[in-house]
């Protein structure tokens, strides 16, 4: 009796597993709702992974505000950095690394609604399209959101010893086997790295691999001897390949952002009334 029972359970497990695999490989549904899901997950393409070539339009498949960090910030932030993190508005998500839900709505308050918030890690981990273009000496990443780009120098140069601070920093890349490794220094003090404060000694390493034609995986490592007690890591962030996509213009216009948010907030709460949790957002609104 017992062996038969065990066999039945095993059979049930096998059927469950098989049905899940079959479901995962099912062709796109004729229903437009099903087809639309490919917007995020991407479509399956057959073919070999091209050598040292990530050309095309990519988008993060999973919607989260920040890439999950593998350990609590308190375990690697120096006291001044921890104090700064705690003093920041809600947009820095003090609940990291546990919380990373994508509350990308005006009422949800987590959308990057201020155009002055420019963080490289936001651009490479947010669910917005990125076009990667290879040239002989540089790799470009064009970001649909904000209609802007970053460049990765691939000409063998060294990282600058004393970089001029900037929002995206200075990036130098190299191939490590099939992985593209990008080192960046020189982030200015207006930026955060994946939500974390940093100093002028910050060093971010992005490691991109392409395990299959449709997937790019990104892992982050951040070090900063002035702000962190040890390097911390984050990822993997999975990006889906969308070879049939073209980027559209999506400048970040503060007036548009503010008007949009106002229309939602006003509709929600009425003139002269605002929910308590909009305080952080009001700081970033232009006067």
């Amino acid at each position, binding site marked *: 009796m017992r062996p038969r029972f*065990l066999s039945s*359970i*095993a059979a049930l*497990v096998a059927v*469950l*597993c098989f049905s*899940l695999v079959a479901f995962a490989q099912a062709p796109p549904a004729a229903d*437009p*709702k099903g087809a*639309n*899901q490919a*917007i*995020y997950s991407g479509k399956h393409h057959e073919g070999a992974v091209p050598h040292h070539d990530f050309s095309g339009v990519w988008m993060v498949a*999973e*919607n*989260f505000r920040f890439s999950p960090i593998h350990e609590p910030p308190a375990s690697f932030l120096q006291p001044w950095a921890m104090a700064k993190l705690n003093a920041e508005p809600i947009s820095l998500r003090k609940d990291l690394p546990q919380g*990373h*839900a*994508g*509350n*990308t*709505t*005006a*009422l*949800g*308050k987590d*959308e*990057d*609604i201020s155009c002055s918030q420019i963080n490289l890690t936001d651009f490479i981990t947010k669910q*917005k*399209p990125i076009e990667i273009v290879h040239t002989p000496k540089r790799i470009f990443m064009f970001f*649909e*959101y904000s209609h802007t780009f970053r460049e990765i120098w691939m000409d063998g140069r060294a990282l600058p010893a004393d970089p001029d601070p900037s929002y995206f920093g200075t990036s130098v890349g190299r191939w490590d086997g099939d992985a593209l490794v990008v080192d960046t220094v020189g982030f200015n003090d207006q930026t955060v790295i994946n939500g974390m404060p940093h100093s002028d000694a910050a060093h971010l390493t992005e490691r991109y691999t392409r395990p299959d034609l449709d997937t790019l995986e990104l892992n982050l490592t951040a070090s900063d001897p002035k702000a962190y007690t040890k390097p911390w890591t984050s990822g993997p962030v999975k990006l889906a390949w969308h070879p049939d*996509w073209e*980027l*559209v213009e*999506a*400048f*970040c*216009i503060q007036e*548009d*952002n503010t*008007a*949009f948010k106002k*229309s*939602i907030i006003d*509709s*929600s*709460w009425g003139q002269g009334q605002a*929910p308590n949790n909009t305080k952080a957002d009001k700081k970033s609104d232009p006067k």
Partner: protein
Amino acid sequence: MKDLLKFALVMAAGLLLVPIAMQAHHGTTAYDNTKTVKLTGTVTSFNWVNPHASLAWDTKAENGAVEHWVVELTSPGMLTRSGWHHDSVKVGDQVSVSFHPSKNGAKLGLFQRVSFADGRPDLIDPRAP
């Protein structure tokens, strides 16, 4: 055999939970994703702007009063890739709009689908499950 069975059961349970977890990440805290409301009315605005498009319309309530509703959509870029255009919805269109209502009871929602009285095909938000 017992260990193998335990392992298989845990793996199967884990596989079952993966889609649920992924779905949860597409949720938004301000809207009640467990509820879908459908209202019929006349479009008063369709704003094709970043970071999100928005659609507003007037609905006649049961007591005869006109209620003004607003829903937020995804970005124009994502809508474009889903077959939308800046003039897909026009002021004056007679529509039925499905959306997830805000949790705070405001006349506000997260857009899911719009149907047109003139028979045009429905349009949906690519985020709609």
